């Protein structure tokens, strides 16, 4: 049971990440690979805030959101000049820069050695020490993010984003300042991914830069592609599949000497088949 609870915690964290990324890619069509960077900044804000400054978990969540928002605002201004593939490449560059900073700013991040002993969330005298309680908190935040996603999706702001996604020039001709909208959704998406980072840091109790590399950004991108773009349900289901599938494969009784390689092959083949038969993802409302 404890194993399933832990898996559910990880699933919740990745659902939050997928929801925040789908806001950007699914709603506005801006393909960003920088999500792992903001996820990492959120995680480090919690790790440093709790271990160095003795801040509470929820304070560090706000700290992570603020830091991410400021960075995303600055970077978003630059990114807003780009479209399509160029947007993705520049965002990948941001991910690499943030990783390098986490790796080399030793006095603050402890570099490759990482940060240990990150505490659990607490409200008053109650600490979310048990995994079940921690899962409850993760579920609450995931539901809040899910609701926020749906609210934005159905708002006038969300409709402008979709217009921007379908035809940016047409949206501009209607009088919308598309750079402004791109910048706002980028800031929002980055800020929310910081929440997932905070939960990840507290859950694992140890973080190092290796968890926030570009490949993590690609993994998050895969989650929303499998689940379906522009779909809150797709984000959650995508996270469920990509987090739980490797675990299911542990139990299918493969010979242990080759199990790891076979598991990877089966995992890859299943994703391949899914993309062949469901190219828009399981619940996708938009296809790139």
């Amino acid at each position, binding site marked *: 049971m404890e194993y399933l609870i832990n898996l559910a915690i990880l699933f919740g964290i990745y659902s939050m990440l997928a929801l925040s990324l789908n806001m950007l890619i699914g709603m506005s069509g801006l393909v960003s690979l920088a999500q792992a960077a903001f996820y990492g900044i959120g995680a480090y804000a919690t790790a440093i805030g709790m271990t160095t400054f003795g801040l509470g978990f929820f304070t560090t969540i706000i700290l992570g959101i603020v830091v991410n928002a400021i960075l995303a605002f600055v970077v978003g201004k630059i990114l807003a000049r780009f479209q399509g593939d160029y947007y993705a490449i520049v965002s990948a560059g941001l991910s690499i820069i943030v990783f390098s900073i986490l790796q080399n700013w030793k006095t603050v991040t402890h*570099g490759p050695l990482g940060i240990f002993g990150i505490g659990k969330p607490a409200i008053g005298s109650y600490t979310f020490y048990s995994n079940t309680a921690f899962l409850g908190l993760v579920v609450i935040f995931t539901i809040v993010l899910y609701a926020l996603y749906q609210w934005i999706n159905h708002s006038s702001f969300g409709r402008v984003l979709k217009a921007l996604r379908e035809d940016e020039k047409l949206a501009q001709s209607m009088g919308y300042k598309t750079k402004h909208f791109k910048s706002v959704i980028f800031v929002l998406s980055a800020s929310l991914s910081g929440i997932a980072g905070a939960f990840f840091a507290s859950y694992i109790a140890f973080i190092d830069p290796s968890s926030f590399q570009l490949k993590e950004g690609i993994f998050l991108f895969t989650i929303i592609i499998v689940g379906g773009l522009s779909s809150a349900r797709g984000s959650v289901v995508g996270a469920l599949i990509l987090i739980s599938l490797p675990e299911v494969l542990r139990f299918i009784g493969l010979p242990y000497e080759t199990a790891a390689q076979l598991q990877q092959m089966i995992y890859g083949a299943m994703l391949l088949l899914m993309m062949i038969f469901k190219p828009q993802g399981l619940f996708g409302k938009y296809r790139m």
Partner: protein
Amino acid sequence: MRKWLLVLCAVLALTACDNKKEATEADNKPVVKIGVMLPLSGEMAEFGQNSLYAVEFAAEDHKDSPIKFDIIFEDDTFTPSRAAVIANKFISVDKVDAIVTSFSPVGSAVSPIADKAKVLHIGLSNAANIAEGELNFTDWQELDIAAKKLVDYLVSQNCKKVVSFNMETVGNEEMRVKTNQFLDERGIEYKEFYFNPDNSDFALMIQKALDFDADYWILNSFSPGQDILRKKMIEQKIDIPVVNIQCMKLSKNLQLFENQAFVDAPDGSKEFRERMAKKTTSKVLNIPAYAYDIVDLIMKANEDFYVKNGRVPNDYELADTLKKTKFYDGIVGKLEIQDNGVIKSPSVIKKIIDGNAVIIDD
């Protein structure tokens, strides 16, 4: 679609419950389960796969034991988050008696989980934080010992002056500090240079280093830094010998370092190397050798306790038995098990001969 998702959830739930067995008597022997997580896929798979063979050897060597050792392997993909999930699987599904991890990020993620669940954990790593808690241990080449070994080697070669080229990473910084401490102690003069492989002016740095007229150059850098420096030395026909700690063996171009020495963790006994040669062509054998020793150590501690008490130990008793062992003759040499959970192990000097790292000082 809903059906499909339900099936996925059901399979996950059923499979998770499937292995829920308590340690049972098999062939009238008590069963001890050891969960071993290794990077069996991904960038570190070579080390993981070879360590798997080494753990299999350890299990083979204990097949006549009064205890049945059940080894459960899992692939951690060298990812801390995945390692955390596996640790929980080991603890709550497989009900293991001990967990073995390799490399610092994975060990660091598992250490608090093992501590909370009160399960013995040994991490193949030199990150001391992993050993925090009563049941956590770490085992790898101690940097203090490695740095001392390097300086002892320099002294044995009548070295009076060295230049050290230091790449700006945390790992290299720690090596630099430790090495300087021993250089000071032994009265060896040194001059330091710092560089970043991407943007440093190597030509100018080398020219300044030559002015110091050192007997040895310490290339305290992983590749590509050490490779660039070495190529520049060869181009300029500089025949000053180079040394370092651990980095040299990780160069993709060992020929560049022909006949140069470095400090490393031992590769295990001759017999172990021969056994491994039947399984793999890999030349990096020290990580598997440590994996062998860790598992062997856990098995021997279990056996010792069983012989004395007629039952297998719980995790606290196992940890206590390990700590009381103090010294253990492993295949990498004599290991010292300290009360703080850090297992100190030896270092050796290796030399690159015909493109291979060969131990010249056991």
